[in-house]
């Protein structure tokens, strides 16, 4: 009832189209349509759609409400006809849509959303439903959710404020496991200009969702950073979108491409077709700025096309066209590149095959494609190319023959190509082909053919007469259009050699009686006027006829009549004086001012009066000067300055956003910028290269050995300096002596052990008191039980540790200790811990934490132990064994193991004495979550190559004044993180490697130094969080 009452009001207010008004009235009339309650309204609304599907008769829904069996289906149609039918009436239904959206049934919401989407699709305004729709963003049903997103994407921009309300729901949506939904979230939020989340999302999901780029400038830098990272990614899925993003955001940052150039070239073949187009476009531009013009000498062309490194993109795409567009893009560049005569270059065969491939591809698309649109574009491009490089296409002449079923625009383009291809050798076949075209039923096409014949005739002197004869025959054609076109073309041809063809002119003069097409008439008149000396008898007669019909002629013809009159007056004034006067008088009163103007001008010029000045003397020269023959040119002549395949080229006008290809650089920019350390990408398929590598190998290994040696020397001295800081000179010296001897003596006994425990890690020297410096897990003790975690000044440990210090390259730096319990809070007990950087023997996945207890109080402390360990999931702790007694003033050290799960989460536990409990927590710096890993330079590069993209983090920094030498850098880095140095050939780079303790993921750090303290820090790590944190830490260490 309610609805019915509302209806007229609504109809007046909202109905816009006539149709809907009609429908509205229909409904108003229908008695069946009155639902009793609101509820029933939407029941009705739902019903028809279902029924329609069940019946599966698409016709009923599609046609709206006008069906014959109105009575029967009235209720159904009234209900809305579902997604398809009568959404003209929807403005009336917004209320029930709102109601449906507010209901708590998903099916109703879905139905409502479907209808709303249908409205949007029809272009109807659904923006007033915004609040009702936005509410449903939290709906559980995925399809509803998706449709809500569709709606939001459409209207969010118009209603920013309201849309922002839904942001929190989106953020929740991000956590939803459904990536497809989160992707939608990204779309919506980009519309809302909430960009931070969006690219963080992309960052984390590594999914190919490109983003909205109309952003504020301050976010550009951040975006560029993301793009840089994604560019380094080596999955094909991302490549297309990223390059697209690159092109939109920062096309000027060509430096980002250097490192990725070769990778992109290699990936290209596997990228999906849309990505290929974008990438090729970008690479083309890149090649233009980074490589020398290959046209300058032949060998360079060869290099350019063939050198696998710098133009590997050329080949893959040529061989494999996933889409037509690629072929064209491609062609365009190659075409520009190889504009030297191919036939002359000594390596022509190779290049030729390449080009041939493209050609065939082009041609295939010309006639295979059943889509005329594709043909149209391809032919446009071919037409441009044929002007400059006829030879390339000549062998495929027949591919451009015209079929009667082609659409006219395609026919005309093909004709253009055929004309461009015509030369002395093939002209006879082409002309024969043209002859069949002239008999076609498509008159526009026939006219174009005649023009084409004219162009062939002007271009190729040999066939001019033949063509002319053929055209003259056409003058007797029954179709006036054909005749007219021939006249126009003949006129142009005759201008080249009029003397011979006075009979043709005579023949044409006769035609003036019949031809009505103004352009043709004008052409004939011009011809007669121009060559009136050749037809002295006919010309005045023609003028006489024309004077008679002057008033009925078209403007263009009138002008030519005046022209003819003037010329005749000058050459044959006796016969034509009066006629000319008459014509000029007629013209004087013509409606067209142009004609009046011309008449006045000519009268002054040719009729000598006392007033007429010097000009009339020259009248004859003015009118009867020799006119140059017109050059019949292809309309595609000047198009080649646009890039082939582009929109601008097609339109022959610069389209918005068209970028001119830059010119080749004068001098080649440094090619080494494209060198990437990883040899894997730059596939070395040629055998020579492989050989080279083999030759190089000894060199590499040598240098490895060398640098390895220096490395250990470095570290030794480092350790020395490190220990110096903590203890007295003499002491450390004697210490190492001692330990050497000791280790020798012990070596035999422990040989078996040693082999087993080869990875035993070096000692670490606490900076504390000199007495407690060495803590190491004594292997023998360990075998006996695990009692050895607590160590005191046992000389044996010292020896052991020194021995191991010799065998492994220790990341040497003073250990930093952290406070666990302060003296005051601990009531005299102070506890410190440090990361000993040694493997925790009981469990290799744990980080060894060395804990120092100092009893500063006056009483003894008993039974020191851990309790109530609270850990994040996945973490584990190996507690240190209980210290039964710590006398006053004494210190003790214990080792505990914590598995941090490669995260910097804290381990919370209680430290208990016999009297008190202290809550303490240990949080590891990220650098301690790894252990050194030794690898060679080559291995390093290889691994680094596999950890690009998202796994690579690069930062630029300025080194602190103090740490500008290699030494200092090594020390700083190894202090910050438990890594081992990787030998390196260059002194500009320091490399470090390690593995995380729990998951053994590689951590690779490179510090490349440049001039004046500038440096670049690169961290490659599978675990991005670790990588990011590590970067921060190292950065801090190096800049302070």
């Amino acid at each position, binding site marked *: 009832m309610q609805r019915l009452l509302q209806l007229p009001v609504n109809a007046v207010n909202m109905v816009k189209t006539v149709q809907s008004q009609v429908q509205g009235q229909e409904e108003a009339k229908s008695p069946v349509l009155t639902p009793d309650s609101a509820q029933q309204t939407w029941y009705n609304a739902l019903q028809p759609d279902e029924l329609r599907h069940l019946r599966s008769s698409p016709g009923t829904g599609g046609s709206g409400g006008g069906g014959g069996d109105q009575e029967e289906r009235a209720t159904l149609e009234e209900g809305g006809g579902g997604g398809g039918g009568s959404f003209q009436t929807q403005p009336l239904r917004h209320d029930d849509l709102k109601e449906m959206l507010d209901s708590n049934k998903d099916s109703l919401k879905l139905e409502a959303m479907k209808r709303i989407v249908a409205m949007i699709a029809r272009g109807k305004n659904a923006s007033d439903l915004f609040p009702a729709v936005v509410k449903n963003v939290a709906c559980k*049903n995925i399809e509803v959710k998706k449709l809500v997103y569709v709606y939001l994407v459409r209207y969010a921009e118009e209603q920013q404020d309201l849309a922002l309300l839904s942001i929190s729901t989106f953020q929740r949506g991000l956590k939803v496991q459904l990536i497809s939904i989160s992707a939608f979230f990204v779309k919506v939020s980009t519309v809302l200009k909430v960009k931070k989340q969006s690219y963080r999302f992309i960052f984390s999901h590594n999914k190919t969702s490109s983003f909205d780029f109309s952003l504020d400038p301050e976010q550009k830098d951040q975006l560029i950073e993301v793009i840089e990272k994604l560019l380094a990614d080596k999955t094909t899925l991302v490549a297309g979108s990223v390059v697209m993003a690159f092109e939109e955001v920062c096309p000027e940052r060509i430096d980002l491409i250097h490192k990725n150039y070769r990778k992109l070239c290699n990936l290209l073949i596997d990228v999906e077709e849309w990505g290929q187009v974008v990438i090729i476009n970008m690479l083309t531009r890149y090649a233009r700025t980074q490589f020398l013009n290959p046209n300058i000498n032949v060998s360079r062309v060869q290099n350019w096309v063939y050198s696998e490194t710098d133009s590997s993109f050329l080949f893959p795409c040529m061989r494999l066209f996933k889409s037509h567009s690629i072929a064209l893009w491609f062609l365009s560049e190659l075409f520009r590149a190889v504009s030297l005569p191919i036939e002359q270059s000594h390596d022509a065969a190779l290049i030729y095959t390449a080009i041939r491939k493209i050609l065939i591809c082009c041609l295939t698309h010309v006639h295979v494609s059943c889509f005329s*649109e594709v043909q149209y574009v391809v032919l446009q491009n071919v037409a441009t190319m044929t002007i400059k490089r006829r030879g390339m296409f000549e062998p495929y002449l027949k591919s451009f*023959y015209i079929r009667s079923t082609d659409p006219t625009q395609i026919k005309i383009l093909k004709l253009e190509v055929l004309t461009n291809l015509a030369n002395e050798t093939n002209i006879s076949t082409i002309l024969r082909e043209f002859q069949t075209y002239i008999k076609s039923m498509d008159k526009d096409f026939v006219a174009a053919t005649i023009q084409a014949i004219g162009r062939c005739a002007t271009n190729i002197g040999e066939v001019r007469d033949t063509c002319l004869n053929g055209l003259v025959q056409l003058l007797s054609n029954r179709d006036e259009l054909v005749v007219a076109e021939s006249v126009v073309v003949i006129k142009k041809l005759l201008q080249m050699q009029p003397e011979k063809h006075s009979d043709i002119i005579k023949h044409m003069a006769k035609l003036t009686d019949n031809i009505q097409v103004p352009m043709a008439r004008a052409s004939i008149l011009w011809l007669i006027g121009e060559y009136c000396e050749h037809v002295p008898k006919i010309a005045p007669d023609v003028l006489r006829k024309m004077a008679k019909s002057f008033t009925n002629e078209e403007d263009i013809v009138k002008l030519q009549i005046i022209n003819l009159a003037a010329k005749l007056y000058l050459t044959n004034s006796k016969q034509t004086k009066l006629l000319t006067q008459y014509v000029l008088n007629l013209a004087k009163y013509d409606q067209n001012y142009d004609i009046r103007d011309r008449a006045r001008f000519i009268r002054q010029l040719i009729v000598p009066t006392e007033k007429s000045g010097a000009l009339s003397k020259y009248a004859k020269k003015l009118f009867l000067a020799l006119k140059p023959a017109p050059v019949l040119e292809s309309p595609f002549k000047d198009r080649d300055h646009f890039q082939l395949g582009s929109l601008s080229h097609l339109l022959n006008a610069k389209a918005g956003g068209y970028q001119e290809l830059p010119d080749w650089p004068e001098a080649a920019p440094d090619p080494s910028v494209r060198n990437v350390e990883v040899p894997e990408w730059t596939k070395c398929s040629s055998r020579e290269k492989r050989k080279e590598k083999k030759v190089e190998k000894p060199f590499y290994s040598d240098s490895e050995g060398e640098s390895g040696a220096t490395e250990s020397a470095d570290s030794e001295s480092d350790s020395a300096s490190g220990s110096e800081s903590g203890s007295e000179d003499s002491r450390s010296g004697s210490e190492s002596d001692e330990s050497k001897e000791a280790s020798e003596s012990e070596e035999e006994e422990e040989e078996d052990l040693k082999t087993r425990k080869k990875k035993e890690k070096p000692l670490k020297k606490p900076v504390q008191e000199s007495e407690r410096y060495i803590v190491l897990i004594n292997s023998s003790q360990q075998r006996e039980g695990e009692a050895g975690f607590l160590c005191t000044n046992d000389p044996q440990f010292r020896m052991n540790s020194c021995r191991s210090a010799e065998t492994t390259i220790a990341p040497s730096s003073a250990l930093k200790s952290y406070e666990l319990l302060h003296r005051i809070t601990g009531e005299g007990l102070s506890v410190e811990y440090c990361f000993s950087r040694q493997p925790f023997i009981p469990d290799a996945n744990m980080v060894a934490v060395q804990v120092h207890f100092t009893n500063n109080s006056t009483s003894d402390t008993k039974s020191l132990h851990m309790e109530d360990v609270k850990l994040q999931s996945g973490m584990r702790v190996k507690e240190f064994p209980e210290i039964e007694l710590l006398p006053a003033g004494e210190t003790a050290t214990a080792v505990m193991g914590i598995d941090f799960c490669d995260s910097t989460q804290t381990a919370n536990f209680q430290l208990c004495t016999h009297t008190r409990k202290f809550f303490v927590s240990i949080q590891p710096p990220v650098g301690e979550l790894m252990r050194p890993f030794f690898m060679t330079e080559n291995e390093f590069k290889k691994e680094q190559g596999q950890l690009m993209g998202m796994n690579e983090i690069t930062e630029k920094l300025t080194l602190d004044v103090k740490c500008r030498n290699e030494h200092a850098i090594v020390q700083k880095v190894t202090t910050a993180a438990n890594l081992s140095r990787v030998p390196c050939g260059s002194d500009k780079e320091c490399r470090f490697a390690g593995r995380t303790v729990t998951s053994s993921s590689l951590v690779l750090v490179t510090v490349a130094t440049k001039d004046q303290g500038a440096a670049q820090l690169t961290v490659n790590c599978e675990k991005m969080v670790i990588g990011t944190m590590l970067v921060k830490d190292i950065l801090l260490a190096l800049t302070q």
Partner: protein
Amino acid sequence: MIHSLFLINASGDIFLEKHWKSVVSRSVCDYFFEAQERASEPENVPPVIPTPHHYLISVLRHRIYFVAVIQSEVPPLFVIEFLHRVVDTFQDYFGVCTEAAIKDNVVVVYELLEEMLDNGFPLATESNILKELIKPPTILRTMVNTITGSTNVGEQLPTGQLSVVPWRRTGVKYTNNEAYFDVVEEIDVIIDKSGSTITAEIQGVIDACVKLTGMPDLTLSFMNPRLLDDVSFHPCVRFKRWEAERILSFIPPDGNFRLLSYHVSSQNLVAIPVYVKHNITFREGSSQGRFDLTLGPKQTMGKVVESVLVSSQLPRGVLNANLNPSQGTYTFDPVTKLLSWDVGKINPQKLPSLKGTMSLQAGASKPDENPTFNIQFKIQQMAISGLKVNRLDMYGEKYKPFKGIKYMTKAGKFQVRT
């Protein structure tokens, strides 16, 4: 790239619009309508129309114009290709791509478009992937959905999309494992008045329907791979292998796909399977013309030429045709002057012919246009280029699949000039 898409039907109604970036008013289509009016035939509307602020790129398929609105420089082919892909997808989903089908499935259409284009840039266009994201509507599914309340939207991100073989989903299972390959060749010919061939080219495709469990790795080898001149592959084909050994090695997508399309150029001699004898004359002065057409098989290697259909646009001056076919039926439309003759099979013993007279306008002079004949036919069990599949092997899975290969030759643009 692509800002908006408008779908326009034959009568000039915009029945669907979709915007990927900001909303472009539909009044932009007025420029399109103008161009449409200027063009004599529907297919003569220029594919690219510049307007003051936008560029309209359109394709015409199934009597629907798909008009994409572009704002800046983009390769036109890129857009055209994409639009065709959209149409193919619709056809794939709804069986037909008609206005009614699109209107009925407007929600699915919208979801599809949303997936296919992301911020105006093509994203997921592979039909296998799309079908996992959005399930195609079937009667059964609509019923189930309405009863159970489940949806058409895929719950999972397509499994294949992020993997190494994005075109294949994981966990495919079939009880009957089968792989069918159809080698279909189309022959494009122009034959001139005297019966000699002017151009002849062969376009071929290999369409596959693969229903195999797991992750099979197939290799397909040819007896004569040299024939293939210009090939373009489905992305699944390992290109290196083809270059080196001329063997197609691939992990197939699930279901139907086009494995390969190729081109056999005119340089190779092409055997024309059909010949046409014709004699069409108009006598000056009389209002009668004679019509005589005979078809015959030629170089068909004993295979039957079937589904033969001859059509021709007769000159405008012809008022009516009174013909007598020896087999099949013929129709002549006096308005469009279109003659079509459904011949059926060609029996080499008794060649089909169509003879009779044409009546011309009284008093009109004889037409000087010559009609051309477009011929369609099919030959089963033969690839006209002589291409032959040698063998198909499967690796990576244990079971024995059923393998089938079918050859067919069709007439593409087969024209006979008179």
